[in-house]
């Protein structure tokens, strides 16, 4: 039986090494690139997502070069949100925000996507409960019951969500999207459910600067937990208290 009937590039396309019961899933993707994938517990595709896991993403901006948009194109290819040349209505699940400090002239580019908040405002305001947080902390839209009221877009402080403004055809089988519903980054939930990393993280690790560390924040031995414990990291609009799962280093 295959756990992989949909999705694109597998994380594990060379060799999988298992280091003991609590160890890491270490994957050799390309010479010199080692991906530490899941810290403690992903879940097999037939078991429900577990609340023991809290998926999180740490982005080290010092390793995120200006002008690189590998994460954005990887997400677009994976999830199929091609642009139609109408920037005002075209969806964007992930974007690079260019920052310039007016006083020091310091320049940074920050990949921004759904921050998968622990206390998501979009979930609170959704009248039908279509916006929801999965047990493992991933914030999703259940497009089957989304009525397209866009209140979540009003409530999201990160401008992470897009509304599908026109009929679509030929969506990716693993990423259903449709007119009249709201959508956003899913942390590539279809990939996670078959133990593969989100497309952006993979692209960044393989071809980019390796700025993204993805893993389980509830597992103290995971790469992301260790990095968060070791370095100063920050969350965007932490003042709102939504506790985003996406953290930034060197912001």
């Amino acid at each position, binding site marked *: 039986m295959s756990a992989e009937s949909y999705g694109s590039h597998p994380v594990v396309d060379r060799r999988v090494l298992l280091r003991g019961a609590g160890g890491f899933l270490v994957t050799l993707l390309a010479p010199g690139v080692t991906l530490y994938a899941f810290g403690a517990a992903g879940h097999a595709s037939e078991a429900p997502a577990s609340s023991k896991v809290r998926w999180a993403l740490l982005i080290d901006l010092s390793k995120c070069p200006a002008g690189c948009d590998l994460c954005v194109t990887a997400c677009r290819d994976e999830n199929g949100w091609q642009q139609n040349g*109408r*920037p*005002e*209505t*075209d*969806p*964007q699940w992930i*974007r*690079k*925000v*260019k*920052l*310039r*400090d*007016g006083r020091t002239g310091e320049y940074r580019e*920050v990949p*921004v996507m759904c921050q998968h908040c622990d206390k998501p*405002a979009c*979930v*609170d*305001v*959704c*009248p*039908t*409960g279509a*916006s929801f947080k999965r047990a493992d902390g991933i914030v999703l839209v259940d497009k089957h*019951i*989304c*009525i*397209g*009221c*866009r*209140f979540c*877009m*009003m*409530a*999201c*402080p*990160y*401008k992470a969500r*897009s*509304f*599908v*403004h*026109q*009929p679509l055809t030929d969506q990716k089988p693993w990423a259903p999207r449709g*007119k*009249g*519903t*709201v959508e956003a980054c899913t942390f590539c939930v279809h990939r996670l459910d078959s133990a593969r990393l989100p497309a952006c993280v993979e692209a960044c690790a393989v071809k980019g600067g390796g700025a993204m560390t993805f893993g389980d924040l509830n597992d103290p031995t995971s790469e992301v937990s260790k990095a968060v414990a070791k370095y100063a990291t920050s969350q*965007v*609009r932490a003042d*709102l208290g939504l506790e985003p799962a996406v953290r930034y280093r060197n912001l």
Partner: protein
Amino acid sequence: MTKLKFHRLEQHRPTLWVLVGLHVVVLALGFGAALYMEEHGHIVSGMNNQIVWGLPHVFAVLLILAASGALNLASISSVFNRLAYKPYARLSGIVAIALLVGGLAVLVLDLGRPERLVVAMTTYNFKSIFAWNIYLYSGFVLVVGAYLFSMMDRRASQSVVLGNTMAWVAFSWRLILTTGTGLIFGFLAAREAYDAAIMAPLFIAASFLYGLAFMVLVLVVMSRETGNELATEEIAGKFRGLLSIFALSVLYFTIVHHLTKFYTGGHQGVELFLLRDGGVYTLAFWGGQIVCGTLLPLGLLARARDSATVRWSLPLASVLFLIGGVAQIYVIIIGGQAYPLKLFPGMEVSSSFFDGVIASYQPSLPELVLGLSGISLAMLLTTLALRLMPFLPEMRTKRSDAA
């Protein structure tokens, strides 16, 4: 005490049919616009990923506010026991229901998936103020319906207790409803223009104003059509006073709202945008809401001292108040979204997704027509109700009794 008489809309001038025809046309166009938007997606509207709520929401909110405000004449008569308002209690109830239905229709037809209305009615997230509003709105129709029954049914209207209870329930319900509508915006901590508890009282004050303005217009039109002067000299004078007080309260809450935002350092940007640099929003605020929708009609009402002047300045002021209302809600809803979200305070930001940029919005014709059709639906429903049941007071008898 004279027994009040009510009648159905039976005798009217041919101009009524012109009005009805006009509303039917607008309603048909609005329905067509909704189908068009449903077929092609919201791409045919001016709304986009920056301005997610547009003109339909402006009209929907205006109508929903006006709905709860229109009930006021009934509330004043039975909750506060002012006999002068008694003749208008029934009419105020039915106009309230009609306005609410009109507003809700616009809101529903603008949904991305309007065909899933049944989902909205069956799946609830009780943490959402929107979900609560679905209850508050449908409950309002039921409560006001029961209130009307307690006033109009031969036996039910004998019971003072029932009448008073229903009056109080309806009055409390409408206050909660408008609070709920205000909190749709008040709870939005993410957006600088909103995120303020004062949105609730501001919306309540606004609802008093728009509701009464609609009532005045309905009374004026019906007086003309039936050839029966519905607004007596006494009540016209009271309306003049009430409209002025309501308009001043809206002005007061607006000033406090903006002052508070202005005072807290972080929000000065959005205030300067709305009040000084916002182009169409600034114009809508100062020209639309303040001058055209507040000062001008207030001046008109203040100057109207003799009853003849009151008679023409009252409807004119009401129209101005409603235009000001559209401007006010336009600035709140669309201006509030046009100002960019601040993800990284203190930084100069830019992106392919309009970060750090004032969002642009050009309302499209389908949106405008859809919004206007809400008003038409409300007016048609009112006319239909007046035709079917005795909502209109018989003022002649009363006047001759008094004489």
